[in-house]
């Protein structure tokens, strides 16, 4: 249960950072040049929402004070993973949150 929550929280933090990243012109051009440009404006609000979702999920894992620490740690590390994936494996950078969400039920059963 805890592992699947952690998986979801990590996915949400990563997806949030990814959305914030897509909100910038440079990375939008790099990753989503084919998509309609009007969508870019939605990226930042979506990112903020996803990060809040990650906070809610980490509140399910830890008591409130610890959840805040854990949430900040997850955001930072997910941002770093995204940063490293962008130049080397941009498609994986886009697809990683899906993988996390798919993995979560696996841990649930275990």
């Amino acid at each position, binding site marked *: 249960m*805890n592992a699947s929550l*952690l998986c979801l929280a990590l996915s949400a933090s990563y997806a949030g*950072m990814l959305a*914030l*990243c897509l909100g*910038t012109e*440079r*990375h939008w051009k790099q990753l989503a040049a084919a998509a309609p440009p009007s969508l870019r404006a939605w990226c930042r609000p979506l990112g903020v929402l996803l990060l809040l979702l990650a906070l809610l999920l980490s509140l399910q*894992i*830890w*008591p409130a*004070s*610890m959840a805040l*620490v*854990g949430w*900040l*740690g*997850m955001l*930072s*590390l997910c*941002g*770093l993973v*995204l*940063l*490293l994936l*962008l*130049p*080397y494996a941009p498609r994986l950078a886009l697809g990683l949150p899906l993988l996390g969400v798919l993995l979560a039920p696996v841990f649930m059963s275990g």
Partner: protein
Amino acid sequence: MSRQPSLTQSMSGLHTWTGLVLGWLLFAIFLTGTLAVFDRELNWWMQPELQDRQVDQASAVQVAQRWLEANHPAASAWNIGLPTARDPSLSVSAGEQRRGQRTLIDAESGEQITPRETAGGSFFFRFHYTLHMPRFLGIWVVGFAAMAMLVAIISGIIIHKKIFKDFFTFRPGKGQRSWLDGHNASAVLLLPFHLMITYTGLVIFFLIYMPAATDALYNGDRDALLRELRPGAQQQQGAARGGEGGRPSREVPAASAAMLPLEQFIALGEAHYGAGMLSSLSVAQPGRVNARVEVRPLLGSRLELTKGEALAFNAITGELLRAPPPTRTSLLVQKVMAGLHFAQFGGYPMRWLYFLCGLVSSAMIASGLVLYTVKRRRQSAAQGVWLRQVEWLNLACVGGLMLACVALLWANRLLPADLAEREGWELRVFFGAWLAALLHARLRAPLRGWLEQLAASAVLLLGLPLLDLQTALAVPDRIRLGVDLTGFGLGALLALAAWKVSKRPAATARAARRAPAVMAEVQS
């Protein structure tokens, strides 16, 4: 026009020099601190004679009680270190807690075990805040480095021109540009962690670093200050010694009485602190009418560092004698900060977050050190001598320390288990390996040296699981397997780094041939 440097220029100079001079120290502090996140696990790995019996605390207490009754029936106190998730060993001692020698016993059979002496993962923990110097000197040097870290963080923020624009920017394969990107991104993305860990690190030793208030208000009497901060503490200590005035009542033993089974107190303690949250249990005056049981929690049941806290029961009736008093706000702030630094809360997910963040911090410091040389190498050849000094010191402090840390783990398994002063020999291997790396760094051409030291650490780390399988007495348990695999993973990372270095043309034959020329340049 005045020729005063602008704010950015002066901050840039400040950042460069604090970062360079104290960066060598800071890397050592951050890397050993990161390893100390798993200090108990490393301790366990380094004593392969111990085995995880997977017994619960209640049955372990029974085993311990039987052993103590058989070996120390008349002791003034019994102390039992309970098996926990991070450290499944069962330890017992009799008499005053601080002085008593711990004996390890098998949690199933109750037989005494004598594991090898080892510096253990605790060495990394002590090195992290004392640098293996005399305690107070080390604490001051580390405190100074932490202040420098804060200076470097703040000045770094000021000189970073495009924090938000470059938030996710990393352009590999472009020399200085890539190093700067990597240094910036790892610093900015983990800024909350860097600030938190550095600041809370300073707060832990607030009494040492800022003694003025204690000196003025309590005439330098730190005990008086602590008494006022913790009104319950004195009463606690007096009671623990089993006498009214805090004196041990050894002369007149009280009448004997039958105690409740000790495992009952595990349940009582867990009701207060939560399941699996107890670390030890002690009995004062065991088997007497005034017998008391104290159960102590693990450090991590709350954010606050709960060190020294205990729940006391009457051992005959099971009545709760004293619950820990709530902490005063002023002390609570300090304890929460210390708790944030020690990371004993939140279980393994939190421990891993701290470990990974610590690794990134160490890498951030190392990248700053390398960035300095990369930048200077481009700027001018006139600073050849100075640059060469920085280059080998960088390698000795970064590559050399990593090699020394792995060497410690190998020494732990390869030195004979019954060697006299074994702990000292392990440390000699650690510092010897570091010294050898330093000499090596001094003699080799920079990139060649990096390649060789990174590769050596990588090979030793990749071989860690094999070493464990070859030298351990039993199949690796959960904890040892975790250490093996983590070591293997880190080894793979270092191998990748070594491979990257080797792809640089200067790292291979050409540099090797040029090495004598560089040396000649240094000596001229």
